């Protein structure tokens, strides 16, 4: 059946010769019928297309726990098609599509629509995130169970962009998702402390006269939420942790055995609020860029496991939302096509983390948080062939106009970055080859009976 899913007439078999698996010794990987068929030395090609993997690193396909695909509703910013092309090019085989679309993904109908759009595109697994509250309004729980039971089988719920600030509502959400092994992904931002906030509150905001977004507004919500998660025995995920103080709270919570996971974005691992001195809104993001001390704490926390995953918070915006005054500009940065390189630059080239650690924070753990059975798996025979090949020695200069995403709002524009995705295999199919988009994976037509099979992508 897998071969029927291919639209190229190829055998669907690929032999990767001599790639360094997770940065270890060079080995061959044989991909056939959507699976890793064999791993070892001097494997027989047996009709498979041979890919020279020398100098390349083989990693599990990356899983983004935090992506904004904008569709439905803001197709002028991004579509599922363009966003997932960007994801494939960036080395992703799965993305979690955040719920702040228009309409909000707060019903089974919307999450199923996003799922279908993702499958029609075929570049990566699109896993819809369900809203916690109706319309992200923070007043009434959305139909979490209906979304969990839908074809989209939602497990991650988030009002991202807005904090579930009402403590009672947050408690109820944490309790309720236990019924279907869900997780609440919190955008930690105390709203009253951040009214009109434009940038990190500190030395730079004082000079620039921009309203401050104090670290305490993030840290106080995280502190409250980990205590709530402990109290009701539920699972909490903290989106885009941005401060050194937040790291300390998460570390404390984990030491107490609280079931909390935390995420950091690539941009918070590198950029600081000093960049805001330019008043260029490409650096406007929520949570805001912080100080160098925060950056160093976040890197250390990602290395030691206090922060579990890298999430891009890929947030494309039309250019008119950035070509304006700082205060008028939209918050957000693109990230799917630069994440690997930025993490390599900030974590691997600095010696803080190895490629096995990279696989943990970009694939294994985010897949586990999202309960994606087929993603973030070991590169072993019998496992689904979600695999990427990375050239760690490559260097490239970021040019947003050449990206697959519709968003041109990359804060890394003009910077030279290390590391390039050479190939992405999604369910054994090369969505990216030679660093360029190849063809999408073709899902079988959906029927009630084939649902499980199609979802698993196996013959």
């Amino acid at each position: 059946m897998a071969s029927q899913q291919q639209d190229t007439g190829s055998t669907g078999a690929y032999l990767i010769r001599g790639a360094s698996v997770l940065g270890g010794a060079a080995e061959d990987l044989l991909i056939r019928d959507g699976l890793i068929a064999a791993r070892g030395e001097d494997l027989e090609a047996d009709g498979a297309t041979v890919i020279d993997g020398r100098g390349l690193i083989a990693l599990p396909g990356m899983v983004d726990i935090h992506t904004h695909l904008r569709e439905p509703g803001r197709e002028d910013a991004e579509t599922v098609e363009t966003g997932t092309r960007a994801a494939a090019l960036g080395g992703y085989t799965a993305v979690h599509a955040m719920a702040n679309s228009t309409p909000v993904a707060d019903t089974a109908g919307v999450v199923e629509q996003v799922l279908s759009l993702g499958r029609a595109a075929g570049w990566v697994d699109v896993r819809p995130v369900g809203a916690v509250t109706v319309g992200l309004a923070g007043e009434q729980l959305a139909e979490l169970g209906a979304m969990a039971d839908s074809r989209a089988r939602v497990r991650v719920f988030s009002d991202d962009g807005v904090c579930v600030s009402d403590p009672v509502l947050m408690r109820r959400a944490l309790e309720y998702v236990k019924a279907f092994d869900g997780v609440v992904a919190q955008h930690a931002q105390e709203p009253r402390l951040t009214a009109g906030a434009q940038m990190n509150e500190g030395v730079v905001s004082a000079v620039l006269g921009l309203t401050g977004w104090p670290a305490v507004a993030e840290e106080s919500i995280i502190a409250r939420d980990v205590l709530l998660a402990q109290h009701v025995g539920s699972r909490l995920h903290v989106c885009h942790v941005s401060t050194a103080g937040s790291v300390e709270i998460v570390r404390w919570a984990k030491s107490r055995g609280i079931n909390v996971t935390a995420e950091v974005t690539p941009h918070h691992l590198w950029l600081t609020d000093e960049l805001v001195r330019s008043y260029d809104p490409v650096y406007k993001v929520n949570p805001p860029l912080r100080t160098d001390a925060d950056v160093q704490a976040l890197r250390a926390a990602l290395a030691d496991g206090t922060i579990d995953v890298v999430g891009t918070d890929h947030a494309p915006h039309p250019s008119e939302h950035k070509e304006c005054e700082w205060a008028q500009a939209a918050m957000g940065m693109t990230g799917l096509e630069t994440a690997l390189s930025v993490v390599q630059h900030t974590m691997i080239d600095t010696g803080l983390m190895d490629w096995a650690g990279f696989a943990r924070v970009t694939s294994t753990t985010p897949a586990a948080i999202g309960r994606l059975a087929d993603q973030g798996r070991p590169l072993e025979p019998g496992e689904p062939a979600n695999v990427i090949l990375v050239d760690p020695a490559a260097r490239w200069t970021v040019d947003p106009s050449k990206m697959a995403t519709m968003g041109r709002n990359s804060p890394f524009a003009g910077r030279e970055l290390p590391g390039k995705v050479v190939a992405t295999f999604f369910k054994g199919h090369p969505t990216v080859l030679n660093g360029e988009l190849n063809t999408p994976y073709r899902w079988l037509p959906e029927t009630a009976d084939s649902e499980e099979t199609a979802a698993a992508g196996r013959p």
Partner: protein
Amino acid sequence: MKHLLATEDLGYADAIRILDTAEEMAAVGDREVKKLPALRGRTVVNLFFEDSTRTRISFEAAAKRLSADVINFAAKGSSVSKGESLKDTAQTLAAMGADAVVIRHWASGAPHRLATTDWIDAAVINAGDGTHEHPTQALLDAFTMRRHWSKLAGTPSAGADLQGMRVAIAGDVLHSRVARSNVWLLRTLGAKVTLVAPPTLLPVGVEQWPCTISYDLDETLARGVDAIMMLRVQGERMNASFFPSTREYSRRWGFDDNRLRSLERLGLKDTIIMHPGPMNRGLEISSAAADSPRSTVLAQVRNGVSIRMAALYLLLSGDTREPATNSTKESH
């Protein structure tokens, strides 16, 4: 100097040059024909996204005394959703051939956007942006202080700075672009600045500024000041819990009659009282203080025209003398 956006990165030589040029311009204001032909045929646009009659007419008078053509563009209530974007406005002005844009904007950094994007090629003068900077206000304040300081020393103003002068700035520093611009410029000119405010009206991070912080106006006066500048306080700050009531504010941080009398008692006979206007009489400054011989409020207004003439002249006259310290951003 291509633009005048901030005093934070305005070097000493440029600052002195603007002040000295303003002295020359002030002489024009004393003549029967208050007009120079320097900017004949040049177009200056006053682009005001925020109401400010005083600043606008000051720039208008300055440009007209230099014979420039002046266009006033009031873009009130502009926002992306409601009206034309800043980019479109700027490109429109560029297409009309504006040589200089004097911009007042409620958003901090808007003048920087005009100056650093390719939307418009004109010289940009910041006439106050959000809670960021108001460089011509600081320059006219420094001009006023320099005349006073030089007069006390019995030396000419031209070429002088403010070395050793003690300046207190009291009030809503958090929301004040005037305070920010003054702190940087007075630092550059050698004055010693003390900011006096309730802790709620000082920005987090103020401890890094090149000045002293005080919560106590009386103590600051008792230590001796040569100029006290009162900042305008908006009554609505009270509703956001920055202070309990306007009466309490006035008692603790207002320059009232008691504090006016205390200057005599403290032997501060030459201390001047400044205010950027418009004043809330009875709130941050009493009428007796505002109208006393110490008050420089009207001199500041008068000097404002000279400073703005100097800024327009230096940016537009084709004066190609290389500024000595234009690019050296001093650390602080």
